[in-house]
């Protein structure tokens, strides 16, 4: 008798121990996955956060040298100001930082501390403040990428001069400006507002954010109604026969097609046969819709299938038509699931790069697109483009763009969770 009890206890201990081991394996697996996510986020964040502020250099601009009386600016139209010749005037304003330098070569080096668009920045300042310009105005000009990176500490100063982009004399100028308190940081609003640029300090993700939003909008408009209606038909109305089986298999296949194939399809048919404008969010959206449709259809069908049949019967039994039963009772219950599927599909589309490369959304686009018919970049393609550039400024901007992309994805997934929580039918 006692033997049997002992045996039982031994066997129970064995089972409990194996359960403990099993739990440790599970926790280990989860920690491993989580660690990689953390490393990824840390890596991106640590190299990307500095793109959200930029270095500016304070310059006193003597507008009186440009015109006899600064009140005259208020009477000039924007076009007049555009026509003003300001290049040498702007350069002279910068030379005033170091009045002692005489040599042309040094002056050139000084000018190169600033972004190439310094003249344009002074002009813009003039345009937006033309009604009350003083004799001398203090303007914060964008520093060049090299200065920006040195200031942020991303650039090694101790290399030999011929291995650096920034020269010794420029470092002397820069350190002097720092000592005089003329160098400062500001929030990098232009990074969020502007399109791409060949100058790292001027390049922004504004164009690709807008491009991505337009693309997602096109995807939403196309694939949401088509996906929902296709799913409702297949799940509720289609006769169960070989044709619908065949369609079902192919929708599942469509979900597994590599995305680049959709890009080829877009290139071959949408661009070359139908002649829609190249490089545009419209075409990108159409191509990504094809990719998103199966996701939406599959998710919607699953949530339609999860609606208890008794609800359909209840509606039919009071004399509702099949369509009424479906639209009044089944679809509302399935909607949160369908919306979740749609958002997840959209999130996938937002991060998709390959098909966009083929339809030309990889073009270098300086302007922020105004409509879905304008040439545009998108966030993931922007990452791809900048990751190939050598300049230091693009390195941090690549990471910052990834941060924005991840931010949008997290927001969308959060929205999916919230929608599901809020509208889920409680039985």
């Amino acid at each position: 008798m006692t033997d049997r009890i002992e045996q039982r206890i031994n066997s129970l201990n064995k089972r409990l121990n194996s359960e403990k081991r099993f739990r440790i394996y599970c926790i280990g697996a989860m920690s491993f996955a989580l660690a990689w996510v953390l490393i990824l986020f840390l890596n991106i964040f640590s190299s990307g956060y500095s793109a959200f502020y930029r270095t500016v250099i304070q310059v006193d601009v003597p507008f009186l040298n440009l015109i006899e009386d600064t009140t005259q600016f208020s009477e000039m139209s924007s076009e007049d100001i555009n026509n003003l010749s300001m290049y040498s005037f702007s350069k002279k304003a910068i030379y005033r930082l170091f009045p002692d330098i005489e040599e042309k070569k040094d002056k050139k080096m000084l000018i190169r501390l600033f972004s190439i668009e310094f003249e344009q920045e002074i002009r813009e300042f003039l345009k937006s403040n033309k009604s009350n310009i003083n004799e001398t105005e203090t303007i914060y000009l964008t520093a060049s990428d090299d200065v920006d990176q040195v200031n942020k500490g991303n650039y090694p100063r101790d290399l030999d001069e011929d291995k650096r982009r920034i020269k010794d004399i420029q470092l002397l100028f820069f350190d002097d400006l720092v000592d005089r308190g003329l160098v400062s940081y500001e929030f990098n609003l232009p990074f969020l507002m502007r399109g791409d640029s060949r100058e790292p300090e001027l390049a922004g993700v504004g164009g690709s954010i807008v491009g991505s939003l337009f693309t997602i909008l096109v995807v939403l408009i196309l694939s949401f109604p088509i996906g929902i209606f296709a799913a409702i038909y297949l799940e509720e109305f289609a006769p169960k026969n070989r044709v619908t089986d065949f369609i079902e298999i192919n929708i599942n296949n469509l979900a597994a097609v590599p995305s680049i194939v959709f890009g080829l399809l877009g290139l071959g048919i949408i661009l070359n046969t139908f002649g829609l404008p190249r490089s545009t969010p419209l075409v990108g959206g159409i191509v990504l819709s094809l990719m998103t449709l199966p996701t939406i259809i599959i998710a919607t069908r699953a949530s339609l299938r999860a609606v208890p049949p008794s609800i359909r019967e209840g509606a039919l039994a009071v004399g509702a038509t099949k369509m009424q039963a479906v639209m009044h009772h089944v679809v509302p219950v399935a909607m949160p699931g369908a919306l979740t599927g749609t958002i997840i599909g959209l999130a996938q589309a937002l991060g998709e790069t390959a098909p966009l490369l083929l339809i030309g959304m990889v073009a270098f686009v300086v302007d922020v697109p105004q409509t879905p018919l304008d040439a545009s970049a998108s966030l993931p393609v922007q990452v791809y483009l900048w990751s190939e550039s050598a300049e230091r400024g693009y390195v941090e901007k690549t990471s910052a763009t990834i941060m924005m992309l991840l931010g949008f994805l997290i927001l969308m997934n959060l929205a999916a969770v919230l929608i599901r929580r809020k509208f889920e039918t409680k039985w």
Partner: protein
Amino acid sequence: MKSIKIKADNLNVYYGEKQALFEVSMYMEEKQVTALIGPSGCGKSTFIRCLNRMNDVIDICKVQGKIEIDGNDIYAPDMQVEQLRERVGMVFQKPNPFPKSIFENVAYGPRIHGIAEHKSDLEEIVVTSLKKAALFDEVKDRLSDSGTSLSGGQQQRLCIARAISVNPDIILMDEPCSALDPIATARIEELMGDLKTEYTIIIVTHSMQQAARVSSRTGFFHLGKLVEVDKTEAIFSNPSDQRTQDYITGRFG
């Protein structure tokens, strides 16, 4: 002898290759409760679902034979099934209120049939239906609460109110009490007693006591065949078929 409301004649039902009902012929009297009993899988639910053509939903289901309600063949090509179901309401085994408010649950039927012209008419129908289903007093203060928040017995009475709301002649009940506790069951049985003054009721039940308590006529199904149908007292006191005898004495099923 009451007048005959429903008449099934030589009814055969198939699910694909499998035959579920064999040559069922019976009639049901107006404003009476007819009970259908039999072991699981005997075809009684299949039969009752033929009476409002709920079997149409199942693709592979095929019905042969004739069912007449008030002398009209309900499987005739010109019969509109939505109209039929307006006249033949149904209450299911598991309470299945819509996941909407109590009011909306009852108002849905009248609304889709356009029975109520004004909002006040609709409200009146809802109140009357809930009263007839003996639910009104319990829910009158919370008509906007979800129908699914009610208890099982209340949900089932809500489903009865929903069936009544379109003013049918016939109410089919497919094991309406099988998911309920004895007290809720007693309330529904009591309710059936009230309802039969206005409606013809057909009830499928597993409980022979229930059949004996509520019905005036009882049919016994076995393996897809209608073995016997007679006055309830006759079935329970003096069945003519051996299988009925065995079933009601608890020897199988």
